[in-house]
């Protein structure tokens, strides 16, 4: 026969279970006379824990934390999983901070993930290059940024000098290299490579023709030139 406790006075607790003196179990939950879990206090009544066998959660109101705990409410380190891969997953996890993976140091903290778009540009030292397609997507994981870009040139006006792909979404922290697939440049254009220097948001393009490296690539951009590029770099 089930027992129901009903409060009959407004604004008064329906039930009070008051353990005196020592920490420990306040409520022992049983099935057929066997305990299946408990709710208790620990750390001088500052903390509440709820536990089944040795798998529980301890609520540390004095530290604004929830910890995995053992049957007595003591912290249980690196032993309890949250969810499981097959049929026991949680849905989304919403964090305003980061997550420590594989360690507890600052270097183990993943505190940023972001996907988005940006508008890459193509320009030379002189003249103008006008694009009719400037598509860029990025993914930032921690401080590592991966960018994919597609640029199509619709017209040019005497472009000259160094060629740069600009308007990256984040400032670079260290030197990185970009890979390019370019076509419809003037027909004597060689293999193109790109480098991104620290504290910049634009990639400098160079080309190799017959083993010689040249940097004045802008003159070879023409209407219809297409540039696809990928770069992975570290953001400031």
């Amino acid at each position, binding site marked *: 026969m089930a027992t129901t406790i009903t409060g009959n006075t407004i604004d008064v607790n329906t039930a009070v279970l008051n353990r005196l003196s020592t920490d420990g179990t306040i409520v022992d939950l049983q099935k057929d006379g066997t305990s299946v879990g408990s709710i208790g206090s620990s750390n001088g009544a500052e903390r509440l824990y709820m536990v089944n066998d040795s798998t529980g959660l301890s609520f540390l109101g004095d530290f604004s934390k929830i910890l995995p705990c053992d049957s007595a409410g003591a912290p249980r380190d690196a032993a309890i999983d949250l969810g499981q891969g097959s049929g026991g997953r949680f849905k989304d996890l919403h964090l305003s901070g980061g997550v420590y993976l594989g360690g507890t140091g600052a270097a183990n903290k993943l505190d940023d993930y972001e996907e*988005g778009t*940006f508008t890459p540009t193509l320009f030379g030292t002189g003249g103008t290059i006008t694009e009719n397609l400037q598509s860029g997507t*990025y993914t930032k994981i921690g401080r590592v940024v991966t960018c994919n870009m597609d640029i199509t040139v619709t017209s040019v006006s005497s472009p000259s000098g160094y060629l740069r792909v600009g308007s990256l979404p*984040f*400032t670079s922290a260290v030197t990185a290299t970009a890979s390019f697939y370019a076509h419809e440049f003037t027909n004597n254009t060689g293999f193109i490579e790109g480098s991104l220097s620290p*504290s*910049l948001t634009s990639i400098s393009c160079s080309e190799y023709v017959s083993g010689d490296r040249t940097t004045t690539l802008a003159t070879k951009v023409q209407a219809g030139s297409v540039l696809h590029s990928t770069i992975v770099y570290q953001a*400031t």
Partner: protein
Amino acid sequence: MALTKEITQDRIEVVGEFKHVQVRTKTAVMEDGVELSSGFHRHVVTAGDDYSAESAEVQAICVAVHSDAVVAAYAAHVAASTPE
């Protein structure tokens, strides 16, 4: 059940020695005030850029951080970073 689109600059960061102003623009589709989806678009305003088309908030930041000294230092850095 009204669908609306909200565009906001939800993150503006000043980073690095040359005070790059990184701007994240968020576009959100809302239904009765509840966000259904969103996406980000980013751009960076570097020292010496023309920021007259930027938002008032970004302009104010650029005015504050892109001093003549910073603009000159960044121009020198770009020149020094040009491949040889």
